[in-house]
């Protein structure tokens, strides 16, 4: 009987651990990847600003249209 109780406890722990991992995998799909992509884009824009736009005396938001001005 005590063996069964121990099994029950271990199974509960296993199932909870699996649930937590599923939640972490789903969260990382939705947030981590998006966040990393957004950070990458931001750093690319900043690098373009510092290397190209700033030297032309343009602000970041004007830089997009600098050819027309």
């Amino acid at each position: 009987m005590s063996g069964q109780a121990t099994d029950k406890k271990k199974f509960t722990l296993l199932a909870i651990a699996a649930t937590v991992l599923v939640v972490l995998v789903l969260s990382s799909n939705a947030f981590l990847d998006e966040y990393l992509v957004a950070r990458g884009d931001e750093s690319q824009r900043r690098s373009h600003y510092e290397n190209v736009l700033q030297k032309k005396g343009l602000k970041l938001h004007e830089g997009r249209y600098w050819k027309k001005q």
Partner: protein
Amino acid sequence: MKKRRTILFLVALLSLAAGPFLHQETAVDERAALRDLAPETTFSGKGGAPPHYRAGQDLVAFNSYDVTQSIRGYAGPIKVLVVLGDDGRIKGIKLLSHRETKNYVHYMESPAYLGRFIGKSVFDRFEVDRDIDGITRATVSVEALAKTVRESSRAVALNAFGLQAGAGQANEAGNWSWAWYAVVLVFGTVGYLLTRRDRLLRLRDLSLAAGIIVIGLYLASPFSLLHVYNLALLRPSSSELWYVIVGSTVLSLFIAGRFYCGWLCPFGALSELIARLPTRKWTVPPEQDDRWRGFKHVLLAVVTAVVFLSGRVDHGNYEAYITLFAFHGNLFAWTLLALSLLANLRVPRFWCRYLCPVAALAAVLSRRDPAYVSMPDCPMGNKPNPETGECIRCNRCYHPKYGNGTGGGEAPSLFPGNVG
């Protein structure tokens, strides 16, 4: 079961309806991509047929999707920005967008791989594993990429530079991966039908082994919920393999319940083989077992809502078999995979019983067959007369007499002491 079916249907329907209001397709910034590819070159505005950007007389750039909209990978089109010279050679290439499962195509996205297209001519064949390197486990995606670059480059080279390429050249040799899948499917189906008549249960072991080797390791194409989501979001593939997998599995769910899980699924097979190792199995109380078996239905509903509301199929990907057979995933995904496999040593088919979203979908789509009465050594650890979604149709307990309700009364219990 009827209640679960209704809830899932409502969740799917409401999420599908609300999704378009919550997310919008962002237009690809082709100019930014062009700036990355050729920072020193000034391109004209987009124009012409097919639409392209021009820099002087000797360089054009175009989005492949503007030219070849019908070529699709595993989950819709793969859009590529290509810079082409007047000699018909590719000068630059950048992936603009795609919806392929990232686990499989992470190498295809890398500049190192795309760089291999640079210098190729529209007169080249662009055939995977011949003049284009293939990527194991991403065959369909890589073939779609090669084909879209080839066809779009040839069309633009003809119109922009008058270069006639492709006429008289043989098309690609053809991908026979669908035939391999079909062979395993036919073998599994024949085995399934034979074991319903006779106790040739070894046939199932052969089918499981074929599932692991062919569907898992060779094709890396286990049926996944992502297939169903891509179908629901109208993002079908142009690959024959995709249609064979989705068509056969969905059909089998309606006709024979979780036949796929019991006879073909490579992950289920691996789980069952691990569970057969002589280790002491835990005794899980029935009420606790039932409660956690219901958890996979909750997961299916949550993931369905997430995917349809976000419009992003990859957001719903937690399936351990994708991590295993793509050989790629993040730390959490690998840990979940390891846990799911090791758990079989104590709880047979742990993933299939408690977590698998395909199992939950199968339960919703299939109908009960009373001929499956369960028995003590059931690979799923089912209790007598199990629910539809819990039986993997291994045929160990199949009682034809009680099928179709013609047996007269309940099937006898095969459990000692008349359990249940």
